């Protein structure tokens, strides 16, 4: 190993400090990486004889933005259901980080472990303001007696403002959520997910029904989240996927048939066959 520092004061001191630094870095590693790896191994889910997932193996690196595409019935939603605990697989394993076995946790426990999911249909609280929607999603004590007397601390208020800025709804702060456009509701829902400070975000068809401008802004939003969070986007819209994807995974009949950047995937003969037919 080449010493990085020039002119050490003493050999012993250098050796100790280097070792200490390496150990410190070792200890820091998980937090430096900002999150845990999601690792799905040979997941199989059968409904009657139909295999919704067929030995699906897939991983998501910390801070990565992964796009999952595939024709209808490829198993995209089932995969999300397994990760969030809604569906239990027949075989295989699903780990979040080295020691969180997702198959052993209930739905709320998985949320608490740091996995947030945005469903296809936006469900925000229409009769509350944008700010209040985010307030309810705040990671805080959620018992009746606490919320009865709870007031926002300044750091919580800052966190809400920060999220408002990320989802670009600062100007809609006091607007009723019901009065937002479809796209804005989707962003608000992503914001509500962010309030729970998840390490992994699962986003199901975020741009369905959006105008081109809204689609573009959603892409920017998701890209800005990657890095700080790991993001998995399931989407049909190929143009959208092309605009944001760094790594794309193609599912077909419950299996991964191709993986790589958009160009590789698009030229993959199997993918072409699945998407265009023979």
């Amino acid at each position: 190993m080449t010493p990085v520092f020039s002119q050490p004061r003493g050999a012993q001191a250098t050796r100790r400090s280097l070792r200490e630094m390496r150990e410190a870095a070792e200890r820091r590693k998980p937090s430096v990486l900002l999150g845990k790896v999601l690792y799905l191994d040979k997941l199989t889910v059968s409904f009657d004889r139909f295999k919704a997932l067929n030995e699906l193996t897939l991983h998501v690196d910390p801070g990565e933005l992964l796009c999952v595409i595939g024709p209808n019935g490829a198993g995209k939603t089932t995969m999300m259901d397994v990760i969030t605990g809604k569906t239990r697989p027949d075989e295989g394993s699903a780990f979040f980080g080295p020691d969180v076995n997702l198959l052993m946790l209930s739905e709320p426990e998985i949320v608490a472990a740091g996995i947030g999911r945005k469903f296809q249909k936006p469900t925000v609280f229409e009769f509350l303001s944008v700010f209040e929607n985010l307030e309810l999603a705040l990671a805080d004590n959620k018992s009746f007696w606490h919320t009865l007397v709870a007031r926002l601390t300044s750091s919580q208020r800052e966190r809400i403002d920060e999220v408002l800025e990320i989802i670009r709804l600062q100007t809609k702060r006091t607007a009723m959520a019901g009065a937002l456009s479809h796209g804005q509701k989707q962003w608000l829902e992503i914001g509500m997910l962010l309030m729970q400070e998840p390490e992994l975000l699962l986003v199901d068809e975020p741009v369905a029904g959006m105008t081109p401008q809204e689609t573009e802004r959603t892409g920017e939003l998701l890209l800005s989240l990657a890095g700080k969070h790991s993001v998995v986007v399931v989407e049909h819209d190929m143009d959208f996927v092309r605009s944001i994807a760094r790594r794309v995974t193609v599912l077909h009949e419950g299996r991964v048939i191709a993986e790589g950047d958009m160009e590789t995937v698009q030229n993959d003969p199997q993918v072409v066959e699945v998407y265009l037919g023979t």
Partner: protein
Amino acid sequence: MKIRQQALSVLFADRASLGFLALLAAVGVLVPILNVAVPESSPLHLSTYVVGLIGKYFCYAILAIAVDLIWGFCGILSLGHAAFFALGGYAMGMYLMRQIGTRGVYGHPVLPDFMVFLNWDALPWFWYGFDQFWFAIVMVALVPAALAFVFGWLAFRSRVTGVYFSIMTQALSYALLLAFFRNDMGFGGNNGFTDFKDLLGFDLQSDVTRSALLLATAVTLAVSYGACRMIVTSRAGRVIRSIRDAESRTRFLGYSVESYKLWLFVFSAVMAGVAGALYVPQVGIINPSEFEPINSIEVVIWVAVGGRGTLFGAAAGAILVNYLKTFFTGALPEVWLYVLGAIFVGVTVFLPRGLVGLVPALSRDR
């Protein structure tokens, strides 16, 4: 201290609440003065009958606010709140019965008249303690709270919602009606309790006592309103409204929907019980007819007429509909139920937000 400041700032922040409380204070002070201090010969004098009537309306207003709190803000349509009202009333009635002492028809020092009539020789165990005012007051809150807790715990935990919950509350009320009708229950059967003499040593027939009761009711109404207002404007209140609008989404955010519903239901039942306890000394009677399922339905109509989800609208609806009831049952008793039905249909069709909806500034849902 922090909570008190919060509650006060909440109350005085909105003008509707301020107006409501000011009106309440004015009535609570003026009516007793006009009754007690203004001589009967003066045209400004208010009869004791009117004082009692206003007191009764205020009790109904408390009951209406209790129903609005759970129905208007949490979507729990209870059609059994009259039962909690009646239970509070019975607890107060038991105290008033024990106060009669030897002045009853049979002059028994301990047993109320109906027990002597039934040839009972000792007080049933559940009548113990009701000679103490504080004990009766504790029971006024505790009995409805306990029933609401057990009933609510079973219903909400099993995720019984919507119309099924409403039907169960009707059944609960009806079951209590049948139980209280029975003479051997020890609650006076069909006749219930009446012929009360005094409360805390004050003669219930005197003008001053009646006025004091009205004032106490007005204060209770104001405090109940303030407490409900504090609940609905807190973060818990926003969770409660979220439960009303999207229950499973709220659960998905990590809130225990069942416990929110349960505590709100219990609080609402206690309010109804307190309203019943104030009602009984003012009307001078409590009998099983207070458990009639129709009573609970009427409360819901008051709330709908006044405006659901506003609290003061519920109070206004209760007072208005009951004023009409007093008028019609006096002038044209046979048409009253038709009038009530017409009001309900009319409000549902033309004023879905109730009378409050007529005033745009008041109808905002916050």
